[in-house]
Structure formats: structure tokens, C-alpha cells
């Protein structure tokens, strides 16, 4: 019997929402031809908590608690975006020391978040050891977060005009010690995966996306930088004190899973550089600027973007006077990165879809808000 008379049918298979490799509750429906993915339809919204609607009913102060819970791996960075937006609306200038504390915490948070990515990507590839190494480093950073803000995840630490409490005694010394350990740890992690033959063959050339497509879909952060676009909000629109700091923007050019991984690994080292500069420069002084006791911004609107570990995090804040924000819109980087998943997964194998999803480093709490 001739093979061309055999009829094949595309099959539709469902992944998620409770799939261990979807990094949360995320579901995608794959149309496959054998093992090859023809099309992918992502379904999100399983973690939708109505952040934007809830914020309309919270005062400016308490909106912040929801932001910690959107991207729960990078709480400090989320708070940064909202606080900058609020300070712009209020016309408040944060104290110098607070700016430095914020940047230190954001960059430490970026390392912790990328460590989580590193561990999860390794686990997706079937390597469970890197996960434990990543968590060892992450634990050190979590200790710092806990010492400063009192919490390990839902920090709620930044305030309009400053931060909640000052750095504890001996923080700078301790932070340097942790950074040295983490620096060593990153090198160790690097040794485990970066040149690993199995890992390379699982990631190189998988889930590639062109720079034009990535820009078209609104991708940001490491996804965009892995395509060769040198875009970083910290450089292109410097906020806070980033214009005073010296750091590089790592860029890779093929846009595949491996490059996204490499970009993130390098970003961690750059973050350490930033924190070290901040520790050198941090001035003494008050940790709170001059702020009105009750926060009631003038009517107006502002759109602020900051560089989250996952990309370009935007807050669109509208005030019409009064105690409550009129509208808070969150432009979540994962939300836009995830849109490009369909483009990335074309012609991948099913087994690789897990790796590609892992390389996006999505946090569903932020996608669904």
C-alpha cells in the first residue's frame, strides 16, 4: 500500500491548567501533527483576581498590597513601578537614601527571580540538581529581604516618598558577604548548565523568535534582548537613580531558549554590579522624604514603566482627586511575552514546548492579574 494514500489527522491535545510544567495555572491547547506542534492556543485567566477593579476601591496606600501579589517573584520591582507613578502624581521627591535602598532591593530581587527561572528551567529540562543550587542562592537573598522588609515574599516595603523602615544595622556588610557568596553561586550554576551538552541540545535553536516578531508582539525584557534588541528601560528611560549607575545590557542574537537563558545569567552578574555600586554610594540620611500624611494626588494621569525581571512593567495610574485611584492599569510583561508563545512554538516538538514556556519565565499571577 502506498504511503501517500494513508490519511493523517491533526490531533488536538490539552496541556494544563494543572500541568506541573506550566509554572502556575496555565492551559494551552496544542494542535499537533505527530510530535510536531502546528498551532498553539493559550488560555489564561485561571488566576484572575480583578486587581484593576479592586484597586479602584482601595486607597492609594493599599493598592500596593495587590501589586506584591501580581508578580510574586519580584515584589520589590512591582512596588517600584507603582510608587514612582504615585510620586509623580503627588509631586513628591523621595529621599536620597530611600532611592538607593529601593534600587538595591530591586536588583537583589532580580537576582532572586532569575535564580528561580534558572532552577525551573533546569527542572523543565529534567535536571533537578540545578534547582537545589538555585534555591540555595535564593535562600541567601531571601534572608536579606526578610531582614530588611520583614517578609520573604509579600514585602510591602516601599512607600510614597521613601521606604517603610531603614536598613537594619550591619546590612551593608552582610549584603556584601551575601553578594560574594551569590557571585560564586552563579558561577557554580553556570558550570552546571551553560555548557551541559544535554541542556544545549534541548535549548539551542528551540523556540526561536525573530526580533521583528518579538517587537510586533510587544515582548520585552530578556525575551527581547535575546533577539538582539538592546532595549532596557533602565537605560532607555532611566528612572530612580539608574542614570548614575554603570552597568551593561547583555544581548544575545538568536532569540532561542538558550539565548534567553544566557541573557538572564549575565543579567544576574550585572545586578550584582549595580548593588555593589549602590552599597558604595549609599548616603546616610532619612529614609522617608516629605510626604503629606494622607495621600490625595491632584487629578491627573501618569504612565510609568520600569524594568522588571520579566520585562517592561507598566503602571497607568489615573487620579481624579479623592482617596481612591480612578483607574489602575497594569501592563504586565508576561502578558505580552505570552502572546508570542504561539509564534515560538510553531514547528517545535511537544517535549520542547515545556522548555519554551519555561524560558519565558511567566508568573501567572501577573498574567492574569
Amino acid at each position, binding site marked *: 500500500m502506498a504511503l501517500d494514500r494513508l490519511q493523517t489527522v491533526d490531533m488536538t491535545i490539552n496541556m494544563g491548567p494543572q500541568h506541573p510544567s506550566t509554572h502556575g495555572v496555565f492551559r494551552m491547547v496544542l494542535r499537533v501533527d505527530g510530535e510536531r506542534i502546528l498551532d498553539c492556543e493559550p488560555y489564561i485567566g485561571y488566576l484572575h483576581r480583578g486587581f484593576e477593579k479592586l484597586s479602584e476601591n*482601595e*486607597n492609594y*496606600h*493599599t493598592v500596593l*498590597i495587590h501589586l506584591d501579589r501580581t508578580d510574586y517573584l519580584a515584589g520589590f520591582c512591582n512596588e517600584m513601578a507603582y510608587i514612582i507613578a504615585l510620586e509623580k502624581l503627588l509631586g513628591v521627591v523621595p529621599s536620597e537614601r530611600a532611592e538607593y535602598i529601593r534600587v538595591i532591593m530591586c536588583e537583589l530581587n532580580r537576582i532572586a527571580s532569575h535564580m528561580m527561572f534558572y532552577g525551573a528551567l533546569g527542572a523543565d529540562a529534567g535536571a533537578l540538581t540545578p534547582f537545589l543550587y538555585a534555591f540555595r542562592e535564593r*535562600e*541567601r537573598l531571601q*534572608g*536579606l529581604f*526578610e*531582614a*530588611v*522588609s*520583614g*517578609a520573604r515574599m*509579600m514585602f*510591602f516595603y516601599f*512607600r510614597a516618598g521613601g521606604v*517603610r*523602615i531603614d536598613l*537594619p*544595622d*550591619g546590612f551593608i556588610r*552582610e549584603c556584601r558577604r*551575601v553578594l560574594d557568596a551569590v557571585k560564586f553561586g552563579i558561577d557554580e550554576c553556570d558550570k552546571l548548565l551553560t555548557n551541559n551538552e544535554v541542556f544545549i541540545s534541548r535549548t539551542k535553536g528551540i523556540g526561536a523568535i525573530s526580533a521583528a516578531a518579538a517587537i510586533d508582539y510587544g515582548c520585552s525584557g530578556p525575551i527581547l534582548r535575546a533577539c538582539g534588541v538592546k532595549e532596557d528601560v533602565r537605560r532607555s528611560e532611566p528612572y530612580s537613580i539608574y542614570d548614575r549607575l554603570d552597568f551593561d545590557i547583555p544581548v544575545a542574537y538568536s532569540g532561542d531558549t538558550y539565548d534567553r537563558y544566557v541573557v538572564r545569567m549575565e543579567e544576574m552578574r550585572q545586578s550584582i554590579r549595580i548593588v555593589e555600586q549602590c552599597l558604595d554610594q549609599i548616603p546616610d540620611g532619612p529614609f522617608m522624604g516629605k510626604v503629606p*500624611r*494622607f495621600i490625595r494626588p491632584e487629578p491627573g494621569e501618569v504612565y510609568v514603566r520600569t524594568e522588571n525581571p520579566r520585562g517592561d512593567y507598566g503602571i497607568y495610574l489615573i487620579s481624579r482627586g479623592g482617596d481612591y485611584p480612578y483607574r489602575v492599569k497594569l501592563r504586565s510583561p508576561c502578558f505580552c511575552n505570552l502572546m508570542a508563545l504561539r509564534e515560538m512554538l510553531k514547528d517545535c516538538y511537544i517535549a520542547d514546548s515545556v522548555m519554551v514556556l519555561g524560558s519565558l519565565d511567566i508568573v501567572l499571577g501577573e498574567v492574569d492579574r
Partner: protein
Amino acid sequence: MLGLIKGMIITWKSNWRKPVTVQYPDESLPLAPGYFGFPGLIYDHEVDEPFCVGCQVCARYCPTDAIFVTMKDNPKFKEGTSKRRKIVDSFELNISRCISCNICVEVCNFDAIEMTDTFEAAGYHPDVVAGIPALIEMSEKQRKGVLARPLKETR
């Protein structure tokens, strides 16, 4: 062969390392310097009444609606022993809802509330509620140093 010896050295070393596990209810790790537990009410020992006048600003600002406060006329004001015209009548903190966010402390106009180190609040009711005596005791414990801790060096 060399690798084997190296591996055995690591095994030997970790054999004699002190375990990092802490048997929690019996012993506990020191709390972080920035740690906040639940809020407590500060007690004014001079006048023998809490500082709180029940103005409800904390209840209004509480993001999780965990606080319920009422106000009453202060009997001690009529006697002339206290300067507070009004005093808190009931102050209920729903421990199950409290997220230890410190907002109530920040908005308080009378500095009558403070964050304590108390965080163990398991109970047998879905809504564990602390009243005024419990909240005052939390604050008193904190002030008397029962729960106070030295600043912790992080790892």
C-alpha cells in the same frame, strides 16, 4: 579514584556538621529585624487606659477590613483624671484577616498602635479575633522585652 576520595571527604565533613533544622515549637529561629507580627495596642500606664481613642482611621485604611473599632465617652475625662475626651470602646482585630502590613500604625494619629512580634495565632475558629485585652497584652509583652530579640545578622 581522586573524585571518589573528594566525594568521601564531603560526605565525612557533612557528617559532623551541625544540623540546620530547628525543632520549631520547642525552639525557634530568631526573627528578622524588620519582622512584623500582628499589631498591638499601647497602654498608657499613667492614666491606666489605652492610648487609642477609637477614631477608626486604622479601620478605614485597613486593606483587608480586619479591624473593627467603636468609640465611647471617656468616664475618666469626667472625673478629670484623663485628658482623653473619647476612648476606645471595643477594638477587634481579626487575626485571620490581618496581613501585618503596618498601615494601621502609619495612619494612626495618636501613636496608639504598634507592630509586635507576635505571630503565632492559630485558633479553633475560622475568624480568630483579638479584643482589647489581648492586643494590650501583646504590646506589653513587646515592651517588657518578653518577645524582644537582638538584631539578627542574616545568613
